[in-house]
């Protein structure tokens, strides 16, 4: 194969790619933050003594986890407006990725909660704490530290899922890569660079989270 590599079009559009990457990171961070909140509520819901609450949480988690994310994105962006809920592209994507993240994180949190020794709650009760204070001061902080390693995997997946935002023309890294590709016909170079950027950023996120894990680890 004789192929002349020519990256000049990519260097020329470097700012677009950086912009796209920035937006992707923003989408991921916001969605993960909201998703953590939803996931926590859903996890407690799944373990609730109240049947209705449990049912709602389980229904939400299984419905979302069994739907491809691309379908969710398209549904929220194209179908919801027909039902009277119109969001702009970016809000729509954040909404989608948040409820998607919520369902996956709910499973992680649920298994983290189940694994905690029952005695922690009782020790909290014994010193006169209410259930809410036990959750916020003991259960959630301990569970969170325990599940951080599996959270990291989920966070990286969710960041990679932001590439699907291009499907509804959210100008993220993939969107701009496609644009450069179409305009320059430099197919190999464009997608090679885009992939490399994803690899490097994911690697950086992973090592950042690993450092966080080490800092938060419960000493023993």
């Amino acid at each position, binding site marked *: 194969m004789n192929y002349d590599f020519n990256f000049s079009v990519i260097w020329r559009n470097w700012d677009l790619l950086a912009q796209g990457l920035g937006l992707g990171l923003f989408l991921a961070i916001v969605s993960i933050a909201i998703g953590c909140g939803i996931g926590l509520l859903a996890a407690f819901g799944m373990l609730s003594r109240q049947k209705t609450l449990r049912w709602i949480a389980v229904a939400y988690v299984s419905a979302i986890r069994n739907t491809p994310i691309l379908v969710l994105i398209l549904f929220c962006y194209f179908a919801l407006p027909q039902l009277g809920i119109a969001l702009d592209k970016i809000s729509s994507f954040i909404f989608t990725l948040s409820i998607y993240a919520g369902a996956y994180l709910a499973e992680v949190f649920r298994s983290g909660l189940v694994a905690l*020794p029952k*005695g*922690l709650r*009782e*020790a*909290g*009760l*014994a*010193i*006169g*704490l*209410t*259930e809410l*204070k036990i959750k916020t*001061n*003991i259960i959630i*902080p*301990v569970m969170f*530290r325990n599940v951080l390693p599996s959270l990291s995997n989920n966070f990286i997946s969710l960041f990679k899922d932001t590439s699907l935002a291009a499907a509804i023309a959210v100008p993220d890294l993939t969107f701009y890569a496609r644009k450069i590709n179409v305009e320059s016909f430099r197919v190999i170079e464009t997608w090679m660079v885009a992939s490399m950027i994803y690899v490097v950023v994911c690697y950086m996120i992973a090592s950042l989270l690993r450092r966080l894990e080490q800092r938060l680890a*419960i*000493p*023993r």
Partner: protein
Amino acid sequence: MSPILNISGLHKSFGQVEVLKGIDLTLQQGDVVSLIGSSGSGKTTLLRCVNLLEDFEQGEIELVGETIGYRESSGSQRRRLPEREIARQRAMTGMAFQQFNLFPHMTAVQNVMLGLIKTKRMAKDEARSVAEKWLERVGMEARRDHFPGQLSGGQQQRVAIARAIAMNPQIMLFDEVTSALDPELVAEVLAVVRDLANDGMTMLLVTHEMRFARDVSTKVVFMHQGRIHEEGTSEEMFGAPKTERLQGFLANSQI
């Protein structure tokens, strides 16, 4: 003066199985009462009813004159008190668990401070000085900044006792506090309990340490199949057990 703890006609079932079949027990200020008996006799359940970690169906428990856990409503119906009330009443008791149950993400001193800050609403500085005082009392001041995972079982249990007693409870409940410990660590924990007993703390303890129960108790209660089978002073119970069952139980326990 009203007794610190007054239990009358206490019944408790787990599903179909009745584990407490009518318990009456009274502790005056400064009493140290040991609950002994084979496993399944209901000792731990009785202890857990006193700080409302277990519900109970019948009977009444009074702490310093206050009926805990339930309120009589219309007719003979009774209602569980709201959570906030229960939490307040629980804080009148202190409990040490078999498995210590320290909060693993907090240092020793933070473990003791949590209840002082969140339940007693103490300022941080005050909570710290109270916590340090009690850690010193149980001989753990040098390790106050260690995490539970960095402490031995005996040290963890001493911190757990400090955490409970720092709340200034009316009565301390000890649930087999040495059962999960290696033999060589038992003594240091028992020394702390004994020290508190000598200090006049009212205590109800479930224990398998017969020698300790004999030495420290003002009263010993032998439970069998959900009932109090025999009770008396240490001398009576260990020196001259009346019932055949207690004689058999003591013969099988190492003293």
